[in-house]
């Protein structure tokens, strides 16, 4: 169990899964890039508009709902949590995340959604079996089952996140194709950082001739 002081941002999970170095740049070094802020603002804006139409009387929609889990040590907000009315007249939470772009092959988005579900379970003392991701480019909902595998992956990611962010060390970069789509590429310098003797050679080349 974590205390409230230890809670980390739920959204950091997606950064961790994309690239641990990116996660450290954002959350340890606080190296914001300008387009991050603007992008996040825009996402929220679009999301509120797309989901608003969807309230029927068996579904209540909660926007921007604060969440936390002391077990995982995470807190954050869910942009949309639908509350579905059950036959026994209880309300079952159903988290929905809006993502720009298209569905990803990896678990990144599913893990973030699952972490929201785990928070909801802990806060509302219930079981959340399912949620959905809404991809802007496909304009369609993809259902996500919170099965044992996904829960385990999410829990492990939360533990790794705590390990990474309790230290002070930013992991070295590993240059790969994803770097080209990473908004931190200019701060991270994946092609130069971490290489041995690079500055030493540069200095010799520039001054000793």
């Amino acid at each position, binding site marked *: 169990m974590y205390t409230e002081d230890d809670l980390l941002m739920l959204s950091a999970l997606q950064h961790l899964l994309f690239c641990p170095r990116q996660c450290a740049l954002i959350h340890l070094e*606080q190296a914001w890039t*300008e387009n991050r802020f603007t992008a996040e603002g825009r996402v929220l804006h679009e999301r509120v508009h797309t989901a608003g139409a969807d309230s029927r009387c068996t579904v209540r929609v909660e926007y921007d709902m604060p969440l936390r889990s002391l077990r995982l040590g995470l807190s954050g907000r869910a942009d949309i949590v639908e509350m579905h009315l059950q036959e026994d007249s209880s309300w079952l939470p159903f988290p929905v995340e809006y993502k720009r772009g298209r569905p990803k092959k990896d678990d990144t988005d599913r893990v973030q959604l699952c972490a929201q579900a785990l928070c909801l379970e802990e806060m509302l003392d219930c079981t959340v079996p399912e949620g959905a991701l809404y991809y802007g480019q496909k304009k369609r909902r993809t259902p996500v089952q919170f099965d044992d595998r996904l829960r385990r992956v999410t829990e492990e990611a939360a533990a790794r996140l705590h390990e990474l962010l309790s230290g*002070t*060390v930013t992991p070295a970069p590993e240059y790969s194709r994803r770097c080209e789509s990473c908004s931190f590429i200019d701060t991270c310098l994946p092609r130069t950082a*971490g290489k041995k003797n690079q500055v*030493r050679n540069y200095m010799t080349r520039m*001054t000793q001739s």
Partner: protein
Amino acid sequence: MKKHLNTLFVTTQGAYLAKEGETVAVRIEGKVRLRLPVHTLDGIVCFGNVGCSPFLLGFCGERNLTVSFLTEYGRFLARVQGPVSGNVILRREQYRRADDLDFSARMARAFINGKVANCRALLNRTVRDHGDRLDSEAVGDAANHLTGLLKSLGRDRPLDEVRGTEGDGAHVYFSVFDHLIIRNKEDFFFHRRSRRPPLDRVNCLLSFLYTLVMHDVRSALECTGLDPAVGFLHRDRPGRSGLALDMMEEFRPLADRLTLSLINRGQLQGKDFVVSEGGGVRMKDKARKTLLTAYQERKQDVLLHPFLEEKMPLGLFFHTQALLLARFLRGDLDGYPPVIWR
């Protein structure tokens, strides 16, 4: 990456800057003379009696835009800046390393290496371009002397010795600086550095340009989350921006080169300056404007960054160097690579 944007220099006495929506409105005698969107700026520098509304200052702070106030003659007065960026781990690392004298000596070597190499490049280049119009032997000898100093800076040495080498280098370099002036020699000459006050026109230009570079270097350090006050070569002294002074070393020859080209192209004349009773020299309004415009234009020039091997506007080099320094302190690089031009 942080984009290189314009700095707004306000030199009109009595001007007042206010926030109007997302723009800065420059009012002169109650009339709005200029409106600029804030997102096209990365700094505002006010010279002399220029006012600024608190709302504009707050807005600039929020946008990470530094507003500096200088006297009419370019002496720094004060600066308004938004919240310090939250990078406490980086700053603590900086303090820890600054306490380590061996590490500080290593950093100092890097900065001085950059400065001496760039001074040498300036000398060599002037000989190449104007060898027939100046004492190329004296200048060439000075350049060779600097080469010797670079050799000695290639090895580990204590901070005192690095400082000694820096002093030597500056002496040799400035001893031939007068040779680099090839036009208007009766008005523009250089005997030695004088700052308070500058005693000739060349010193007046140099001091003013160094202030501008200093402003840019300090903002860049702040944006990266480094503490501009805690330096390695320049040790702590209240009120002094040690790290900004450190990082400025490699950029000084840039200001020198700009000074020389303004003089040698005849863009500035003797009559653009006022010599006061005590011998102190000041620029007239027109000269100041010429200089600010030239500096501003220079910063837009796109050049190859020698270490990253990427092209970028010169104005962005300040930010890039601050970033590289931060990356070195965080352990991602095996040293700090100063910008070296050849």
